[in-house]
């Protein structure tokens, strides 16, 4: 239970950073997606129903503070969680480089899912240009931030998990 509370607090801090601090340091329109990194962390370390619920909650939290259609990010985060979970069952994803690669691919998958849904349901223009430039940059920035976020999550959650065990 304490682990859920700690994770929730970290998610709120990540959201605050993502909405207020990181946009000031954005490159073009791209800013690192810290909640996505947390979702990838769940996919790698929480192979259970609470992990999936956590990924959904992270996406829904992002929906709440975004101008998107409610449920769009929640759905994309669940897809990312499922893919990372399936990948981690088949591939050894334990060193820093492989985690960075997984986060990069997860960011690209999330972008693809969101854009597919937007284009399907709202018939918006300009998605091709966005996919090529902003999405790629967004994925790179998110991947570069991932070692730091993973370190914070490990340091905060491992002692709690050890205590609970």
């Amino acid at each position, binding site marked *: 239970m304490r682990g859920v509370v700690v994770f929730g607090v970290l998610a709120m801090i990540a*959201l605050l950073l*993502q*909405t*207020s601090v990181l*946009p000031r340091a*954005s490159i*073009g*329109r*791209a*800013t690192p*997606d810290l*909640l996505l990194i947390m979702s990838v962390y769940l996919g790698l370390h929480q192979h259970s129903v609470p992990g999936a619920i956590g990924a959904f909650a992270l996406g829904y939290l*992002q929906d709440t*503070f*975004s*101008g*998107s259609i409610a449920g769009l*990010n929640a759905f994309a985060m669940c897809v990312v969680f499922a893919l990372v979970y399936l990948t981690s069952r088949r591939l050894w994803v334990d060193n820093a480089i492989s985690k960075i690669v997984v986060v990069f691919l997860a960011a690209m998958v999330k972008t693809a899912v*969101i*854009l597919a849904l*937007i284009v399907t349901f*709202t018939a*918006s*223009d*300009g*998605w091709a*240009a*966005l996919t090529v*430039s*902003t999405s790629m940059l*967004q994925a790179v920035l998110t991947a570069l931030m991932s070692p730091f976020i993973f370190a914070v999550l490990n340091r905060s959650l491992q002692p709690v998990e050890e205590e609970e065990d």
Partner: protein
Amino acid sequence: MRPFQLAITASFDAVGGIWGKYFALVGVRQENELLRRRVLDLERQLVHLAEVEQTDQRLEQLLDFRSGLEGDAQAAVIVARDPLPWFGTVTINKGEADGIRKNMAVLAASGVVGQTIATSQHSARVLLITDHNSGIDAVVQRSRARGIVEGALDGRCVMKYLKRGEDVEVDDRIVTSGLDGIFPKGISIGTVTHVTRGNRGLMQLADVQPSVALDRVEEVLVVAAGAHMKGDALMSCAGPAERCQQGTP
């Protein structure tokens, strides 16, 4: 006696020199630390003053703009931006408690920022004109050709539903028509950067560069429905596009 006098005087001078040049330096070191701290403090104050000056300038521009507007308006500060790049929304620090309601126009000194789409007690969310869900009834200021300015996913604006025969050129200024009941008439939306006329079809498209630098804007004015520009304020922006400020928050 003279050699002794010289020796004593020289040794006293030497001791005095050591005292003056070495022991007194202990105080100098402390003074140096103090002065360094003071310099840092003054530099910090300088940065703070520069920031205050810039904020003053921006607020003065906003106040000038406000004085040209007739109707209720609330100044607000942008406190957060959308966590994802493909949605253009921002959060402002004023909400229902300050009289902010859904579908109110949000403006900056140099033009339209967006409109409120959701409100809570002390904050409100603003849909920027560059968001793909945004649509504003607009006219080309020079030729009065009508269309709808919509946002695109890549952060620019496009004027759609312009009849093929209408007169639209690059550098034309696009302003609000006031017919949507949200935005006052004659507020600058942006400038035409490119016009696309296909070989077929009844319509033409115009790419529009927003007047407001939406990624840098910090203070905005939330305007109630029914507000309108005073005659003289409207005329001050009625000339060529260059007369109104471009790309400023």
